[in-house]
């Protein structure tokens, strides 16, 4: 493997220690609202050392790492027990979209903050009435001189409470419906017109939020693409979500899996034949996800959207939810007791993973997408827009 990965390996060994020790294996889904200050510091440390955006092209401040290097990079990070990254939305979703569709000025304005680990992003897509039917966006944007003025509400906005910016899809053209007339805006969260309210979830934690826009503003240059391009940009971003970001997720999954194996060895569940079979199946799933991601990313590298890419969301979500159930069964009756008076890591995994098969397109929507796009089956009949 390349010198880049060896360097990163050494850097992790030398830097992921001391005060950061308490983040080892933490901040995974369901645990993402812990120790925000320390995690900002960690993101900045990664950024300062040049380890954010290693997969971006060199001309945009990245290291132009190959796919194999990115895979190895994430595996090294996992092996060192690196925590969930609060910069991942900016790094793996927003930045590739900005590089593909943004102007030079927009890139110059926003990429450095992501790369340095100083500016965090969140995703303003879902609304109370635009969930599975995502194009039913009601949040409005109107031009007022040099500024866009935004009114409406987003919901299920991951990590908004920690973020500096949000990218928002909003309806700019009065009277349009569905995918038409939308804009993709970049907005600072710290302003009078934006109110963020965390949503307490079944995991007792709150990484999802409601974000209210009441005459919130951004400059008219803070729009990617033109008026009417919002849907196209939003979908391109989801394409990146299907690809590269699954590599980072792989590391979390591997660590969670290994902690379950460790527990099974300690408490004797490893002797239970059905538990053993389920753990073996979960392990197979891990390997399948790795190869599916490689196949999808290799195709994307050659500018193709591969059919198997359509299955990655439902596959990992279902796998992860099953892992949460397995974790409880490995714990056995002890799962009912909260040892430290609060949910442990495996409780959080079990509870939070119920959201995996809902957010980012429910399993039911994913099956529609697979049937229609990967298999070419007839489209769902739609009601008339109100």
């Amino acid at each position, binding site marked *: 493997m390349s010198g880049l990965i060896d360097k990163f390996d050494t850097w992790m060994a030398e830097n992921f220690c001391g005060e950061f020790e308490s983040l080892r294996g933490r901040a995974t889904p369901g645990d993402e609202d812990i120790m925000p200050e320390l995690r900002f510091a960690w993101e900045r440390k990664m950024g300062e050392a040049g380890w954010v955006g290693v997969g971006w092209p060199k001309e945009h401040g990245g290291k132009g790492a190959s796919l194999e290097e990115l895979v190895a990079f994430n595996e090294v990070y996992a092996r060192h027990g690196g925590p969930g990254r609060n910069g991942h939305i900016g790094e793996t979703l927003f930045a590739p979209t900005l590089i593909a569709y943004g102007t030079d000025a927009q890139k110059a304005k926003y990429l450095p903050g992501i790369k340095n680990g100083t500016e965090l992003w969140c995703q303003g897509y879902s609304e109370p009435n635009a969930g599975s039917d995502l194009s039913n966006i009601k949040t409005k944007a109107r031009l007022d001189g040099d500024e866009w003025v935004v009114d409406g509400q987003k919901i299920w906005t991951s990590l908004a409470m920690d973020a500096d910016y949000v990218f928002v899809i909003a309806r700019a053209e009065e009277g349009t419906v569905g995918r038409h007339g939308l804009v993709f805006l970049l907005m600072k969260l710290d302003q009078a017109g934006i109110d963020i309210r965390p949503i307490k979830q079944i995991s007792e934690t709150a990484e999802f939020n409601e974000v209210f826009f009441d005459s919130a503003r951004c400059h008219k240059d803070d729009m990617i693409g033109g008026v009417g391009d919002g849907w196209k940009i939003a979908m391109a971003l989801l394409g990146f979500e299907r690809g590269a970001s699954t590599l980072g997720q792989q590391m979390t999954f591997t660590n969670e899996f290994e902690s379950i*194996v460790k527990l*099974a*060895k300690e408490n004797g569940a*490893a*002797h239970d*034949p059905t538990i*053993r*079979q389920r*753990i*073996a*199946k979960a*392990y*197979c*799933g891990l*390997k*399948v*996800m*790795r*190869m*599916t991601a*490689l*196949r999808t990313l*290799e*195709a994307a590298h050659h500018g193709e959207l*591969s*059919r*198997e890419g*359509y*299955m990655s969301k*439902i*596959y990992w979500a279902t796998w992860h939810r099953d892992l949460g159930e397995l974790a409880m069964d490995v714990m056995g009756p002890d799962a009912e007791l909260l040892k430290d008076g609060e949910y442990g890591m495996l409780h959080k995994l079990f509870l939070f993973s119920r959201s995996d098969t809902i957010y980012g397109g429910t399993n*039911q929507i*994913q*099956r*529609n997408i*697979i*049937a*229609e796009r*990967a*298999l*070419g*089956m*007839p489209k*769902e009949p739609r009601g008339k827009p109100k």
Partner: protein
Amino acid sequence: MAYPFTEDHDMIREAVRGWAQAWYDGGKGPERVYQSGTGFDLEAWQALSGELGMAGVAIKEEYGGAGLGDLGRVVVMEELGASLCSVPFQMAGGICTDILQKLGTASGKSMYLPRIASGQICPTYVEGLDAFSIKESSLSGVVSMNAYGNAASHFLISFQRDKKVSLGVVMAANPNIEVEQQKTLDPTRSLAKITFNNLSLDDVKVIGTTDRGRLQDIVDQSFIALAAECVGGAQKCLDITLEYAGQREQFDRPIASFQAYKHRCADMFIALEEARSATYAAAIARPDDKTEAALIAKVVAADAYFKIAGDAIQLHGGIGFTWEYPLHFFFKRARANRSIFGSTSRGYNKIADRIFGNAA
């Protein structure tokens, strides 16, 4: 050309696909094998190994093969699986090739590999580590469920002698060997009971010695070909179902437009691509990871094929239940692939053993 394949792989895929589809001929291919009662198609094997030259797809070029490795074999097996073409490829061009190439002596390799590659001989592998007993210098024992044993010109046998595992080749026509074809649930794959009755070791050409662990690794790694057959068959079942769903109308709509139907097809697709990823991952795995990856490919692909073949019958309604419609052949092959070379639950156990080490 799609990752992880190269243009060479695409070329052989095209050649084998065209040939295998012609053989399949609307479901008559497997039916012909069934009618023949032999469990395999000798003419098809002669064509595949002779004219198409595919028996040696994974044999190194210096021995007259194409040198395309596990991935090349995956391509051939996918296409054979899609057509249910029953030939002893995975024995001669699969496991026997691997044992010779990875464990064979120089003379063993040069004696047999070129003849396998050219289709001149067709060995199957007979594992006799526990089944054979050796008295003085003659070998006896019975092995059941030997895949394509009735198609073999030679047997590549393993046996335990003086604390060593020996590998040898013997002519199938030896008077001390009796081959009896077994009746099978899957009529398109031959299984045979082979009885070795005081076979003289002078008749066995020793081609290598090894140890149990190393041999088991090679045997396990040969599962990649079986996994690929599952992928090919599963893809075909999904294709047949999608075609039917687009044509068949109920309630004045194609049944493909019903969400209950679409979601079941989506689940079939997920299982199929899961099997494909596991299989391709094993084919490109590094030597140290290959045994584990092959075990995973085998169980994942066999599970997927069985699910998909069963779903295909369900989604066809009554017609899927008829003998005339080809789905039952796929369903039976899928069932057979769950148990051949070790059952699925045993496979998961082996994977669990690796995960837990000596913990259990």
